[in-house]
């Protein structure tokens, strides 16, 4: 029998070897000569930390206890690697593009860089992984126990061994994982060492398997016979449980912090996943190949009391193959150490980044000089975290009594860690997932897992037997293994069913009812559409595009003719003749995108082709770019709108001008019609009477005289009319030249009164107060006199009083000179007052000899002189007022 010391020596030697390998790998990586270290093989082997001591030892025990069910543990990861490698690729791409350091970091980053979420995931991971680490401690202790009598162990005591193993692993992890602090959190040395360990465990297990099949059973055929006769052949396959555990192991494969560490954080090249997609399942196949034979032969050979978990060691030992047993021991040791190291590394990153550092930074807030020692602090935080995690594992092992079968501890751990799955997968594929939703899901799932799985797994010391049997406070529906009265289920299935389904439900519902912050939405878009953002985001790869769809779209945008020409040209370039559509090669798609962008804008064009080519979803940037283009279009259209409004305004102005012109034209027509009438009427009389004088016989001399007088008067009337028309035309056109000069009002009135009354048969008495009229004027005195004459003549003509009188009064008011002409007649009826100044407006039916232009001319004249003439409606009798600026006012102007 190997002594404990010898085993410890072997372990130490092995560890030193690993350390050396890691050291050399790190040096090679540092000097850039590490191409082989970055091979997909190393990556694949490093993934094998999935196979821990649980798998190494426990799978055989699992097979011995539950038959082929152990395969589910391998089936989950296999399905993930083969069936979901594109999902993993997305994970890896996000990990690289977002510089993610751990799964907690990933979740936090996805949901708006929420540290609260990171802390939750970290705590969940710590609690979930603690049983797993305890499991590794247990397995190492058990494996020691196989070689060494309990007497020999006595020197250390069983728990002592565990303690020292934990210490050893902690030191190991600290030495490996925190020797240096890589900016990108990659540990080439560790990964290389882990890959070496993966080889060791595979070789060890294969060696034991080959020995069992050909050394003990005597060949494949005999082994199969032994399997058939053993208990393993009798186990029934429980479909539900199989599916559940397959799912669980698949979930754990994705969510386990250590798997995330090697798969995402330590990944050098995304393409390694392609190799791993077949190589890792192959590794799993090989490592599981001899599990059943070893279990069957073990069950055959060994006592009932022997722990089937240790068959890998005990079977060779029972045959006296100590060397093989030591190799197997090293394989198990490798499994445990690689898992513990990577897990501790991953966990310490999470704990230090999301818990220790925030606390330390906030406690140091205000201190300016922490930049120098941050490295040191981080390293220290990681080392302490590793020690703490190991201590937790140790205490869990002590608490749980170490009695539970390895596999069940592993499953509890898996179930715990799987609670991350909804938030993770939702975050990768669902833009609507929110931080609150993720928190709610995690909390619900975590709480249920703790209550139904973790606490009961710690033994009756934590949850009393009565709680297990009758529920807390006697509430039966709250029994940890029969929630809501669902009994008879396997505990682990019960846990997974309740925790994951309620976790997912909470995650989805809360996500639906909460609104993500802008940062969350941005991050969500970056995650969900990671392939549109990282490496060559504007290039088209893959060619599942339907050329017909592209053609249809292009026709819509470019027009049928141009699109067909473009496609035809492209087809010819590709060498396809005779009406074939071109293959959607990246070059063609790029050119098409450019062609379309000329019409719809670059972003829209990119998004549209993206929709067709491989159905790639449209990224936020694309949408934003589309929105920008739309905004530009909107701006353009608003400019157009402004222009069209301007045009409408112009059109309205034109219309108004046109209406005015039409009106003026109508006025002109009316004026011409009036002029025609005023001219033709006297001409009619003249013609008629001149014909009478010429043709009629036997006219009396009185008749002749009378008719000649009529002709004479009508000729004068025509002359007056023509004079008035010319006068008005000159005044209206503004071409009149005013003869401004100084004078007095009384002089102007004197000049006006006598001609206005000259040769009139009917007397008009004019009343004036000459003392008021001594007012100096500066104006066109002739024009002013013309106005006065007109007004006086009007009074003489139209005043209907029997003894017509006209009173001329003069006022000065506010720099204005007011001259009122009021007669004692009946005046102008109110409805006609506004018309008297219009051309040809004759108020009464009686003919007064004028053409009706007098007052129109007066008004024109007064307006030219800076004054006005108005009718005073409130006065009895005809009353006109002439307004004129005073001389000093005029001079001042």
């Amino acid at each position, binding site marked *: 029998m190997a002594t404990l010391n010898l085993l410890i020596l072997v372990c130490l030697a092995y560890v030193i070897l690993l350390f050396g390998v890691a050291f050399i790998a790190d040096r090679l990586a540092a000097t850039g000569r590490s191409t082989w270290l970055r091979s997909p093989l190393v990556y694949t082997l490093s993934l094998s930390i999935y196979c821990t001591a649980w798998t190494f030892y426990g799978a055989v025990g699992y097979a011995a206890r539950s038959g082929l069910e152990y395969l589910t543990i391998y089936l989950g990861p296999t399905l993930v690697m083969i069936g979901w490698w594109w999902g993993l690729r997305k994970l890896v791409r996000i990990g690289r593009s977002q510089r993610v350091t751990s799964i907690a970091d990933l979740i936090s980053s996805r949901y708006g860089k929420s540290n609260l979420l990171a802390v939750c995931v970290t705590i969940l991971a710590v609690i979930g992984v603690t049983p797993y680490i305890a499991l590794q401690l247990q397995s190492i202790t058990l494996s020691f126990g196989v070689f060494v009598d309990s007497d020999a162990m006595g020197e250390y005591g069983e728990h002592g061994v565990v303690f020292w193993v934990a210490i050893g692993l902690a030191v190991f992890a600290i030495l490996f994982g925190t020797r240096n602090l890589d900016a990108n959190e990659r540990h080439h040395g560790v990964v290389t060492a882990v890959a070496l360990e993966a080889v060791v465990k595979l070789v060890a297990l294969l060696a034991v398997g080959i020995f069992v099949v050909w050394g003990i059973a005597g060949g494949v055929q005999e082994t199969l016979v032994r399997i058939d006769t053993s208990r393993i052949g009798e186990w029934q396959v429980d479909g539900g449980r199989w599916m559940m555990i397959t799912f669980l192991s698949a979930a754990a494969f994705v969510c386990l912090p250590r798997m995330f560490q090697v798969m995402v954080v330590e990944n050098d090249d995304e393409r390694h996943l392609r190799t791993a997609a077949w190589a890792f399942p192959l590794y799993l196949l090989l490592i599981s190949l001899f599990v059943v034979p070893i279990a069957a032969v073990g069950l055959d050979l060994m006592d009932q009391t022997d722990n089937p978990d240790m068959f890998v060691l005990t079977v060779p030992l029972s045959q006296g193959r100590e060397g093989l047993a030591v190799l197997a021991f090293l394989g198990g040791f490798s499994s445990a150490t690689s898992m513990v190291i990577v897990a501790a590394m991953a966990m310490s990153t999470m704990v230090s980044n999301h818990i220790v550092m925030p606390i330390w930074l906030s406690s140091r807030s205000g201190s300016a000089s922490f930049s120098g020692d941050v490295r040191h602090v981080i390293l220290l935080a990681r080392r302490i975290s590793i020690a703490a995690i190991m201590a937790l594992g140790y205490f869990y092992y002590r608490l749980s009594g170490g009695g539970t079968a390895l596999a069940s501890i592993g499953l509890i751990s898996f179930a715990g860690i799987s609670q991350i799955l909804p938030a993770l997968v939702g975050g990768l594929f669902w833009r609507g997932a929110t931080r609150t939703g993720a928190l709610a899901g995690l909390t619900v799932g975590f709480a249920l897992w703790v209550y139904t799985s973790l606490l009961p797994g710690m033994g009756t010391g934590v949850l009393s037997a009565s709680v297990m049997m009758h529920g807390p406070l006697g509430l039966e529906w709250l029994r940890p293994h029969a929630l809501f009265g669902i009994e008879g289920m396997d505990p682990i299935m019960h846990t997974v069913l309740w925790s994951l389904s309620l976790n997912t439900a909470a995650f989805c519902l809360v996500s639906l009812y909460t609104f993500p912050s802008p940062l969350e939405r941005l991050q969500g878009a970056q995650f969900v559409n990671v392939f549109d953002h990282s490496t060559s985001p504007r290039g088209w790869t893959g060619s599942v595009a339907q050329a017909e769809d592209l053609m249809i779209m292009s026709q819509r945008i470019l027009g049928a003719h141009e699109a067909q020409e473009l496609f035809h040209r492209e087809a010819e370039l590709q060498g396809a003749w005779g009406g074939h559509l071109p293959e959607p090669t990246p070059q063609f798609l790029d050119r098409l995108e450019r062609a379309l962008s000329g019409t719809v804008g670059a972003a829209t064009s990119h998004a549209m082709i993206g929709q067709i080519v491989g159905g790639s979803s449209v990224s936020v940037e694309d949408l934003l770019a589309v929105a920008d283009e739309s905004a530009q279009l909107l701006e353009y259209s608003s400019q157009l709108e402004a222009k069209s409004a301007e045009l409408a305004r112009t059109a309205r102005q034109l219309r108004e001008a046109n209406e005015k012109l039409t009106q003026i034209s109508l006025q002109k027509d009316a004026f011409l019609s009036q002029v025609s009438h005023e001219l033709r*009427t006297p001409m*009619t009389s003249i013609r*008629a009477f001149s014909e009478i004088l010429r043709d009629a016989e036997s006219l009396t001399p009185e008749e002749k005289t009378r008719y000649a007088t009529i002709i004479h008067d009508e000729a004068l009337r025509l002359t007056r009319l023509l004079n008035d028309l010319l006068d008005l035309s000159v005044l209206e056109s503004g071409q009149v030249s005013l003869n401004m000069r100084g004078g007095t009002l009384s002089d102007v009135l004197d000049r006006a009164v006598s001609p206005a009354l000259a040769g009139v048969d009917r007397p008009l008495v004019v009343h004036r107060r000459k003392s008021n009229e001594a007012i100096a004027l500066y104006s066109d005195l002739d024009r002013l006199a013309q106005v006065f004459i007109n007004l006086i003549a009007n009074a003489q003509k139209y005043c209907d009083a029997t003894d017509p009188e006209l009173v001329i009064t003069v006022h000065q008011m506010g720099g204005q000179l007011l001259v009122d002409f009021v007669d004692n007649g009946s005046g102008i009826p109110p409805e006609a007052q506004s018309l008297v100044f219009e051309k040809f407006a004759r108020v009464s039916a009686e003919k007064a000899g004028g053409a009706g232009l007098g007052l129109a001319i007066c008004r024109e004249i007064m307006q030219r002189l800076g004054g006005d003439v108005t009718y005073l409606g409130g006065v009895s009798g005809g009353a006109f007022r002439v307004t004129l600026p005073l001389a000093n006012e005029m001079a001042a102007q």
Partner: protein
Amino acid sequence: MSRRVLLIEDEPNIVEAIRFLLVRDGWQVEAHSDGADAVEVVVAAKPDLVILDVMLPGKSGMDVLRDLRDIDETKGLPVLMLTARGQSRDRDMAEKAGVSRFMTKPFSNAEVLTAVRDLHAQATRS
């Protein structure tokens, strides 16, 4: 039997000239100078023929003509219309309103006489 003409015209000189012509031709001439009550005057006077000016104070000759054509007694009355507004529009309007003859001022005396005789002859024939 005497032939009676009603002359509706606001220009006294023209009234005098036409009266002189028609009286010498053997007509009995009545004159009226306002448009507002012209229709009543026509209905009351029952002339053989009406000479109507277009531009009348109170009511346009055109409206007077339309009213006359709406009244049974004057529907067929010969109406000679005179206008000083030399616009073809007026002729159209007058013809639409049912004028018998339309003349533009200034006219020759012979024209007026011929028109009046023709209109009367047509009216008595029918």
